[in-house]
Every structure is written in C-alpha cells, then in structure tokens.
C-alpha cells in the first residue's frame, strides 16, 4: 500500500494558463485555414494511419489549439501524408500543410532542445 490515489492530486484539467503556443503560432502564421476547424472528425474517420493505429489527426489539431504539445512529437510521426484528410475537410483546411508545419516546428524545437 505504497501509494494512494487520493493523495496524488495531479490535475487532469486543461490548464489554459499554461498555454504552450510555440507550435500553434508557427502553424497559424503559415496556414490560416487551420483557424476554421470545427472538429467534425471527418479527417480522423478517413485517415489512413488512423485506421491502422490510434493516430488521431483531429485531436492533434485540438491539442495544438489548447496549447498542450506533450507527446505531439511521437504522435505526428504516424501520419502517412496521403492527403485524404485534406480531401474530405468540409472547411477546406489544408491539413497536409498543417502536418508538414508541425513536423517542421518540432524539428526546430528538437534541434534547440526545447521540446
């Protein structure tokens, strides 16, 4: 009885004040269409990678917009870049470019060793 669940008050709440916008700002500056996502999930439903694994492109976008970028680096690697998401998006978001920009920003942050 080494640990007690109730003694581990690590909050699951999304802390909006701890917003990490380093990737989001980078993406938005370069791909304005990303602003218009309504989280309909069409991209995730059609996603080639998402049909094979737990990869969820909508959630990645959502995490960015919520300023939480933990685990993003590993998750985004699963994308196969096939472009189906872009083809079904009802809001004409250039999702492939969003993925490319996220990868670029992650590569930048990793080289600065700040991720």
């Amino acid at each position, binding site marked *: 009885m080494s640990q007690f669940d109730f003694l581990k008050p690590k909050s699951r709440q999304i802390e909006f004040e701890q917003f990490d916008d380093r990737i989001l700002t980078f993406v938005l500056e370069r791909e304005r269409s990303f602003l218009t996502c*309504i*989280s*309909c999930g069409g991209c995730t439903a*059609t*996603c080639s990678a998402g049909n094979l694994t*737990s990869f*969820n492109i909508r*959630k990645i976008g959502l995490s960015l917009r919520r300023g939480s970028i933990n685990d993003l680096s590993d998750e985004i690697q699963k994308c196969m870049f096939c472009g189906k998401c872009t083809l*079904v998006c*009802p809001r004409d978001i250039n999702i492939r470019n969003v993925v490319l920009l996220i990868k670029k920003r992650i590569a930048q942050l990793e080289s600065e060793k700040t991720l």
Partner: protein
Amino acid sequence: MTEKRNIAIIGAGIAGQEAASVLAGLGYKVTLLEKQERMGGMLNKWSKLFPDFSSSQQILDTVQVSANKNLSVICNADISSITKENGRFELSDNSSLKVYADLVLLATGYNLFDATLKEEYGYGVFENVITSVDFEKVHKSGKKLTTLLGKEPRRVAIIHCVGSRDAKSGNTYCSKVCCITGVKQAIEVTRMWPDCEVFNFYMDLRLYGSKYDSLYLEAQKHHKVQFIRGRLSEISERQDKGLQLKAEDTLQGRPLRMNADIVILLVGMEACEQNADLCRNNTLDLDENRFFKSKNIHYARNISTQPGIFMAGSCICPMSVNETLESSRSAAFLVDKSFRSVQVEE
C-alpha cells in the same frame, strides 16, 4: 386603380401560391408562373412536416390558390429571362411565352443537393444509401422502409450536412432544416420499426425553431434515437449489401466503424441554377451562396437589388415551411406597399 397593376410571380410552390392568394385578394392582377406541370413545388415531395408530423398535403391544400378573376396560372413555364423596358418587366421562357408585368415576385424556391456528387457516401453506388427525399417518398407511400432485399432494417444511420456546410460540395452555408428533418425521420423510422436502432451523425445540431428541441428530446427519450457527433467520411459496401460507415466519434475521440442496413443522407438546399439566368439583363444580384441577394438582410429581406423585383421563400435562403409562408406574406405586404407609395408620388 390597383386593378391595372400587374404582378408576375415566378414559382407556384407554397411561397408563390400564398403570395398570389394575398395579392389577388387585394385586387392586383396576378400571373402565377410554374415551370413544372403542377403547383406545389418541393413540398409535393414531402410526407410529414416537422415538428408536429402534420401532413404536407394539408399545407398544400391550405395554400392552394383558388379560382379568382384576378389570378391566372401558367404551368410548364420555365422563365429564363427578365428584362425591363418602358417601365415594364418582360418575362420569357425558352419558347415563345412572354409575360408582362409592372412588378415581379420571385418565388423560385430551391434545388436539392445532388448526393451523387458526394461520391464517398455511395449514393447511386450502393443501393441501401438513400436521401432524405427518398425516405419521404417511402413514407408518403405508406410502405415501410426496407433494405434493398426487402428486409427489416436493424440499424439505420442518418447523416447530417450532406451538401451543406461543406466546402468540398461548394456549399459553405447551413441548410438549416436538415437537422430537425433528421430528428423527425429518425422518429419516423423507429415508428415503422420499433426495434430498429437509429443513429444520427452530426457536426453540430442546429435545432433553431420553437418546439424543435422538444422533438430532439422526444427522439432520445421515447425512441432511443442516438446521436453521434462526427462527420461521416466514407461508406463501403459489405458482401451482403450491408453498409459500413466510417466516422470519428469526436466526443470519445476515437474512430468509429459501424455497420448499418440503410443510410439516409440529409441532402441540403441549394439555390436554383436558373437564378443566374434571371439575373442577366438587369441589376438582380446573387449572394455568395447563389441565392437571390436581399437589399438588406434585416429590414429588406424580400426586396431584391433590382427595383421592382421582390422575393419570397427559399429563393432567398434555406427556409422551413412556416418561414416560407411568413416570408411570402411579408413579400405581398411590401409589394402592396410599393404600389401605394408609387401612387402617392404620382
């Protein structure tokens, strides 16, 4: 004095008929032009109306124009041009028909989105994929909805926003009435088949009207209709002609695969293709969604950008039946008012 004033109304759906009745009753000479063989327009395709399941036939009967010396009806008149000469409008179709009027009221209504354009949803490819209009046809016939093989459906999926709010279909606006139609049809399916599971796939539920939300509540409480927030990406067909749907359950945050026996696509409302023809040769304008543009969307919704041309019903934007009727009465009032103010000036 007003007897000499001629009004041409294009479209004898419920909007055109309602306005024609009101204006003829006020003593104007009204010519009602309908491109199809019979009047009633799109409502002919509907069986029951939301939110009260009243019969659409009842509405059609109520608004039907009655014989009146001030009113003449011309069917099979597909008006393709409006020009103004010597202060009068000349309306003509592709043949020899010409109608002259002092004032024109557009009640051209809407078109249904062609679901075959959304190829990934399989309409026209997989027989068990139907549209909301197909469902209305079945319902109106009094038969029960069955699969292609004539079997009772165990599960029906209703897809919202087909051809609406979809840049890929070229329509970025909301058709407004599909959500509530989806709820209504879900209830109708469960009334046909109490054991059938019905799922509605939606992006946002836009149940804007009075009594609509209570229908939503009723669908959940009494009919066990389920709602999944997620946009359908594609449908494929199984060996047994059953359908497999792919969507994301966005609230659970996981992709979802579901088998369904029948899929109903809630097709959206589009502006008529002929609208562009009518805009030629005058200053009539279309808005960004190809519907007729209002002079002002708040206080002059029925007034077009061309003086002397008024609008009623869903040629302005997607509307429900009750909004359409209100819109056409409002248009009739503005038409009457414009004649009066012209006479004061004279």
